[in-house]
């Protein structure tokens, strides 16, 4: 499913409108974790990450793991520096008011699966 369609279906707020390359990207896989080493080890390339962590290192991890997008759950918002870094790295950032469990559930219902599905 295309990232822009996911954002619309889940009612996500986009934080990185300057990152345009990903909106057409087809998102097939996702990962949810707040442990960044765990994200590095297991997040699927080209996938989406759902996390509560909103600091700068999330962008480094997302970039190294070659993720297309990060969804911050629980209405947690990163500061401008983090958004700026994401713009520079080409990682799309979104915020959802829903908590992690609900965000993942909705993603799953849209056909975005985990590593072992």
């Amino acid at each position, binding site marked *: 499913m295309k990232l822009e369609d996911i954002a619309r279906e889940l009612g996500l707020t986009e934080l990185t409108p300057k990152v345009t390359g990903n909106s057409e990207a087809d998102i097939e896989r996702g990962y949810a974790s*707040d*442990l*960044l*080493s*765990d*994200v*590095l*080890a297991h997040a699927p*390339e080209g996938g989406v990450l759902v*996390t509560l*962590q909103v*600091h*700068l*290192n*999330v962008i*480094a*991890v997302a*970039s*190294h*793991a*070659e993720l297309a997008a990060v969804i911050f759950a629980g209405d947690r918002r990163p500061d401008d520096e983090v958004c700026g870094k994401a713009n520079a790295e080409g990682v799309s950032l979104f915020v959802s008011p829903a908590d992690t469990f609900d965000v993942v559930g909705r993603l799953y219902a849209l056909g975005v699966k985990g590593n072992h599905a």
Partner: protein
Amino acid sequence: MEHLTYDIQSGDFGGAGAASRDLKQHLKRIGAESDAVRRAMIAAYEAEMNVVIHTEGGRLEATVSDGQLDVDVVDRGPGIPDVPQAMREGFSTASSEARALGFGAGMGLPNIERNSDRLRVTSAVGDGTRVSFSIILRPEAADQGARPSSLGIAAELCRDCRHCLAACPTAAVRVREAQPSVLYHLCVDCTCCIAACDPGALTLLDAPDGLVPGADGVLAVPPALLAGFGDHAVDTVLEELRGLGFAEVVSVHRYEDELRRSVLDLAATSALPAPVISSVCPAVVSLIELKFPSLVPHLAPLASPWEALQRDLGERDVTYVVSCPSQRTALLAQQPTAQRRTVTPRLVREAVLPRLAARRRAAGETPAPQPQAAGADDLLVVTGVSHVLAVLEQIEDGRLTGVASVEPFICDGGCFGSPLLGEDAYVAAWRWAAAAGSAPGEGRSYERARPYRPRPGIRLDPDMAVAIRKLAELDAETKALPGRDCGVCGAPTCAALAEDIVMGRAVRALCPYVTPEEGSAS
């Protein structure tokens, strides 16, 4: 060759990632394959974060040579008191600040191990820690999928007989101007060329300092070595091996038994597609990753018997007597903190044979072995490269039914059949079967530290458009060659020479059957 250096500040969570990000740009610029870049970045980032979280600061140095990235991360302390403990997933001493940011889950070093091809960690309390890892890059398309190899080449011994060309199951050997060479992106680290090479130009790399016994040293041996000394009983051989100056001699056979049990358990749970293929032989695992990537899901995700034994021996000073290159490669790729070396069976035989002869002179002993039947239902044991290839083809084509698990060995007769052992495979196996019940030792099986990774093997070019053009050239070259597979050009088949020509490793004029006019057209 390119050398890069980055300083890393203690506690600088914001700046962390700068070194690994810059390294990534360099690797992309030289055209390293994307999977290697991703693995390199994850490993470098984890190493960088370790310096930020745990140390007084340090430095990351990276060297990019044509085929490999070597990264050295050295910090200024405080050092790790128990390195093996730090290597275990889930162990962490991180601060609450680091944990609040989502680090310090005890996954750093295991993550580095999983993503690198070689890792070594050394530490001195009060002094600092050094984390060194390597990742095989091989930027040129032709060398993608290269792995570390333990095949040694002594070119001066080559007699130009070219028996190795036909022996190699993956057409990885070339002999040009009486100089054997190996295309490492195709090599699976087996023993086929070694067995075919009478003069010993192709062999197994040995420890540079030979056999070094130590008061605390362990000698780890294959059962084929214990059963490989004529009519000397296994117990006697064990005793004389200890007599060389080792504190302990252990055999890998119980780990082979445990792996077999675990594979059969896996087959019974139907967690993997049938038949489950045992990871007993690292050369077959490599062959599957290269030539049968569709069968990778069939592979039991378990460490080989030697790797499992190495885990149990932990930090002890161990000399492993390995009977093939693939075992050596597997051992050196794991247990990054241990004192370990590998030696060839020849070295050990030469040391222990005089002792056995002296013992025989002093007091004769004659064992009377009675081979016993061993076997397990639902288990298909396949040995020898041609049989292994045939069975893997059958599995791939879905023609092998009713078999729950397969235990494949690249050498004829299993590990007993390695050309690097002195005794004939059948004789040693028969003698071992008689002694195995009473041979001491215990074993276990372990999950693998690194995931299986299919290798692209022959990929003409990473750019698909270029690859398609080269494919057309390859077709034309193949048609221009006589198809006699004579080996005179130094490639095992005409198809292999055609590929060498297209990839720039050879010219058509090497073929004695192509007339000069045609040759000059290439």
